[in-house]
């Protein structure tokens, strides 16, 4: 298991009212992502726990892409990964952000 935390900043806070949401499942080739609205309004903290070792630079690239697309300021994002591909990771991140932006 490899663990690391990626700290970054967004241009704006993520909208919506939900305090937290979970997407995905820790199945083989998949991952789960927990979004929690906490911390500084522009801060984005991503805690990664992954079964695949040696891919931190790929995670950093995916998170950078995600932050540029969505601007998820104020999100504390925790990931449990069981070998998901980068496109799956991005898809789940986008899903989670969309759920957090929901009105109720």
């Amino acid at each position, binding site marked *: *298991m490899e663990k690391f935390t990626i700290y970054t900043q967004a241009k704006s806070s993520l909208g919506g009212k939900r305090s*937290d949401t*979970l997407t995905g*499942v*820790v*199945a083989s080739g998949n991952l789960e992502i927990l979004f929690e609205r906490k911390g500084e309004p522009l801060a984005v903290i991503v805690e990664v*726990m992954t*079964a695949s070792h040696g891919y931190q630079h790929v995670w950093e690239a995916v998170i950078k892409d995600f932050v540029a697309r969505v601007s998820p300021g104020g999100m504390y994002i*925790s990931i449990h990964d069981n070998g998901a591909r980068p496109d799956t990771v991005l898809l789940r991140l986008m899903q989670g952000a969309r759920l957090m932006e929901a009105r109720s």
Partner: protein
Amino acid sequence: MIPENVMNQPSWYESSARARIEGLLDAGSFKEILGPQDHVMSPHLALFDLPPAFDDGMIIGRGLIDGRPVAIAAQEGQFMGGTFAEVSGAKLVGLLRAVARNAGTPQEVSTVFLLLDTGGVRLQEANAGEMAVSETIHAILDVRHAGVPVVALIGGRAGAFGGGGLVTACCSHIIISEQGRISVSGPEVIETNKGVEEFDSRDRALVWRVTGGRSRVLLGGADSYVKGDIGSFRKAAEVINNNAPPLSLETLEREQGRLEHRLKAYGNCHDTPEIWVIAGLSTPAGIADLTEDDFIDLLVKEGVRHDAR
């Protein structure tokens, strides 16, 4: 083969545990207990270098079905095979104990729904998982003793194997789909231990004939048979009421008679079609080939009812 109106429905088999809960309960009524945001996870998986899940593959809570308050628990079969383990098991046990304790109070629920999807005990925490199964069984019986029915819904990818098979048969009522499988030792386990001539786990038709939903409901191992979409499970869950048998000496005496009779009548059979011949079914060899509608018609015609468990 699969009619279009069924194909467009979300499938129970393909869905996640959370999607099954959403589809089963009244919209927006689910209130999760110890959810992912509580971070209550397995302390044992790290020893095996395995990633944990925020809910440990067990989602529990309260909700409404047709406006009636119910308790619900769902195993996520895609995470560690939906296994019983220390945390996942304790969540289920805690829910069941709470239901039993609150029966007859303003906090009571009318029914407990168990969306089982499990390979049995999680071997990485085998002892804790085994205890969780035993504690779950004790707690289910306490809930039934308190007058609240416990209903199992079986139709997930992982089936209901190992201790999950025992837990299922301790429930008041079992709803199953064609894809649902119930067994103690799985076909792979039997093949590994006893050889391929005892059970060829790659013979899918055989596996389904032995463990699958159609055979289980015909034999009495399940009570309600539904098509594999979430909507059908929901409809079956709506009509469950307190007619489910209470846990009593009389119920278990009837089960004793039912199971003794089964052993006497079918104990020498080698495959399910032999059982259906003795049982006098009209299409003993073709049960698996019937369409869903024809199979459901057959159940209605045969008047198959197994209410002693």
